[in-house]
């Protein structure tokens, strides 16, 4: 744990991609005085565009906190986070909300969908909230990619867990956001369905040019990413490119989970 934290453990790809999102000395503390808990301790990290990044770490490591901060769902104690060029710390609730709607996609572990809306309505929800018509061609492509063409009129309660997560993926993709955040997106699924969802996410990055950051504690899930960031005790402790489940698991053991 005392290893040099700033040095990458693996060799980065030859050309450094642009940052879709960035955290600079991002710090989050809860409570005050003696009871202060530091959830995230001056973390600086870039999430590259057109890349699938996984954030890993034991529970309490701050991986979810990091994602929530960068996604504009939580506010920093100090430091800055950026989506593209926009510094989130300067935004009020309305601007932050609009930014999430227009620039960010979300895939949560569960409760991803509004139960009263059909699959299609859920997919185009951010666009509808913005009062925009979705891009028909792109939407067809997304729906086709996740294989939901025949399920669009169904409500979430009529869909299986896997189908529900595919709708969530489609929603995240549909508005063509700058970046998509996934919070344990396969945590509630069996491994086969989970693998399917992760494949969609990977192909979204490779084939549709999207950017995804995913929090997970599952080495198998992390292996779908191109880059894995390891967090422990609120700090980034490691980084890995082109991960495999075994290598990730190995690293995890190394950090003593």
């Amino acid at each position, binding site marked *: 744990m005392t290893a040099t934290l700033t040095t990458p453990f693996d060799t980065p790809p030859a050309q450094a991609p642009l940052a879709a999102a960035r955290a600079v000395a991002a710090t989050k503390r809860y409570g005050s005085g003696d009871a202060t808990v530091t959830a995230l301790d001056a973390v600086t990290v870039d999430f590259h565009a057109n890349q699938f990044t996984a954030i890993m770490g034991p529970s309490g490591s701050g991986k979810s906190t990091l994602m929530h901060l960068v996604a504009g*769902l939580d506010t920093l104690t100090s430091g800055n986070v950026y989506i593209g060029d926009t510094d989130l710390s300067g935004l009020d609730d*309305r601007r932050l909300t*609009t930014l999430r709607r227009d620039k960010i996609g*979300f895939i*949560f572990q569960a*409760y991803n*969908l509004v139960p009263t809306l059909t699959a299609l*309505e859920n997919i185009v929800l951010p666009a509808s*909230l913005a*009062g925009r018509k979705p891009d028909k061609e792109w939407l067809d492509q997304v729906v086709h990619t996740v294989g939901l063409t025949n399920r669009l009129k169904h409500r979430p309660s009529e869909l299986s867990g896997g189908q529900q997560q595919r709708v969530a993926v489609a929603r995240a993709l549909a508005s063509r956001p700058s970046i998509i955040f996934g919070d344990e997106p396969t945590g509630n699924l069996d491994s086969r369905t989970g693998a399917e969802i992760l494949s969609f996410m990977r192909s979204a990055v490779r084939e549709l040019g999207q950017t995804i950051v995913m929090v997970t504690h599952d080495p198998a899930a992390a292996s779908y990413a191109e880059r894995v960031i390891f967090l422990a005790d609120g700090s980034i402790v490691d980084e890995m490119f082109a991960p495999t489940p075994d290598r990730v698991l190995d690293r995890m053991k190394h950090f003593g989970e």
Partner: protein
Amino acid sequence: MFITTLKTLAARKLRLFTTSFAVLLGVAFMAGTLVLTDTIGQTFDKLFSNVNKGTDAYVRGEVAFDSEWFGDQRPRLDSTLVDAIDNVDGVAVAEGHIEAYAQLVDKAGKPIGNPNMGAPVLGASWLSNDDLNPFDLTSGRAPVADDEVVIDKGSANAGDFRVGDSTSVLTQSGAQQVHIVGIAKFGDADSPAGASYTMFTPTAAQEFLAHPGKVDAIKVVADAGVSETQLVANISKVVPAGTEVLTGTEITKQDQAAIKDDLSFFNVFLMVFAMIALFVGSFIIYNSFSILVAQRTKEMALMRAIGASRKQVTRSVLLEAGVVGLIASALGLVAGVGVAAGLKMLLSGIGIDIPAGGIVLTSKTVIISVIAGLGVSLASAVFPARRAAKVPPIAAMREVAVDQSSRSRKRAIYGSVITGLGAFAMGAGLFGGAGIAPVGLGAVLVFVGVAVLGPILARPISRVIGAPLPRLKGMSGTLARQNAMRNPKRTSATAAALMIGVALVGFITILASSTKASVAKNVEKTFNGDLVVSSNVGGVGGLSPKLADQLAALPELDAVTGFRIAPAQIDGSSNNLVAADPAAMQQISDLGIKTGSLDNLHGNEIAVFDDIAKDKGWALGQSIPIRFAETGVKNFTLAATYTEDATVGDYFVSIDAYDANVADRFDQQVLMTIADGVDADSARAAVTSVADAYPQGEVLDRAEYSEAQTKNMDMLLNLIYALLALAVFIALLGIANTLALSIFERTRELGLLRAVGMTRRQLRATVRYESVIIALLGTTLGLAIGTAFGWSIVKALGDQGLDTFNFPVSQLAVVTVIAALAGVAAAALPARRAARLDILGAITSD
């Protein structure tokens, strides 16, 4: 789990408040009504014991018959009886007493007081004996000359009168010029219960107020040592048949009982609204507990899983309902005292002045309030509690089940049967003559039945109501509509509370507008008069017949007649007898003479509405016995029948017949037509110049006359609206409560929406429009029921002059708009809460 528990508690504060508040308002209204009527009752108890304080015996005519409109009818006594009684053994003093309509005119020429709505305006004889006279002079002296009067201090204040002032007093014998020689207080009060008193010498009182040689009653003081009963026994020996002799104690008791009887109508009237409020409140309790039980399914299941019995689960829910009921009753009782004051202000605002001293809070009020509050709360929670007990322990392992929408066939059958039974009971009451009780019961059943059907109706109606929202309001509109449709049971139970208030408002509005339309149509159809002088006093008093005589002399007018109503017992049953000049009446009103003729209606002849004559099997020449209070039974001969009863009612006689048999001679109105070739303005000017001396009368043209017929109705209408506003307000609390509970339940979903980009403003709009849909659902159902009720009553009362059904579109549109706005208001707090939701907490909490 800890966070959720804290959240539940935080949510519970508002929930406990709104749930309790719904019942609290009903209880407060009920307690307020009881406090107010008890307070008024006590005021009158005191009043009458003061009035009769020094009276040991009271002599008056026996009841000839009881008139539904005018009360007990008694003959007056000959004033010679006063002297006869004065000479009876044991009598110290006997004085004749007269009390009749007399209205003071203030310095601006306006009559003082409004006997139509408030305390009576009376003239009386000044009693010279201090024991008999409840008034005490504060300045001046007793009247000696016949144009001298003593007035009560209240009237002196109202008219800014001092001893030495002169003014006029409106009486049966016209406007009398009088000098005020004294001002008197009634015990500590300026006037007895707000009534105005002008007191004349005994001679003047007989002359101006009643009839020379007649008195209303004789008040007697006993010699020292003579008991009331002994005195009554002695007096009874000398009085003629048909005379009643009471002890002072008895007359006090009878007066007190009589006013309580009058007040009981008032009490029942207000109580009806209190019960409506509680009924609406019961829907809210039911709904709140239903939602809570659904939300706490997991908790209940866990309790069952670890060994709690069904009974214990039921009891835990009922216990909570009991706490709600007790809090509501206790606070409601306290608030009731305030409500009593508020009701008094409300009533005085529309012109009904109520005398009331200190606040009277009886143990009866406390007991009734607590029973009502607790009872309504527990009864409403019984079904939810039983549902809670049915939660199987296995549900603890399942996802939380949201209350399932019930569209079962059983519900459709039960709902239809209950609604049908209600409609049948109402029909039996309205059309079958079963009375008012089945109508009320039927209305309650209809409300319950439609509420049972509600979950089936809620989804399609909400879909239609919300149809324009997605287009108008985008995603917020779509979600609002979907949310209103997702729990049809919850939506409909919430809307049902509002439905009741709106149904009653709609019903009353339709009834009023149909009544107005019917009256206008009848006036249009049968009334040919051009001008009317209408007295503002209903029931007691009116215009002196001298006015009609003076008007008849005007060259600008053609037909002129006074119009009077007298109580009489006709063919054995109490009825109103209309009297006017037959020849003039035929010109003024189209009576539709069917048989016979009115041309020479003599003093012992009567004309009867054709339907009545048919019912009774009377033909021309039939002898009809009529009992008058003053003259006893007289036989009248049927001289004509007519088909238009709008103006003259069921029975019509000449003024001669009236004068020969009725003691009080007042015209309610003077009706007239303008002579040929005279323009309306100059005729009206001529009439006004004569009528100026009778300021209790108002000069009206035909259109104004038509409107004036329903003027009092408008005041009653406003009072009823004000009272129904409470029921509507409680229903709005119910909407707010349901929304708050729904929002709490949808925390995760709202968090998700906020995360993917719904702004606070959009979220508030979503909650707001869901509320508007619920409000409009309630309004739709309410107006449908209100219209059905209104239509039924118009059909039922068709033969009593209510023959035109009028659907007041604009007024009901206003009701709908107000309901929608009220929905917006009800959503204010829940919407704010929803918008303030902590996104991260919502999506991460487990």
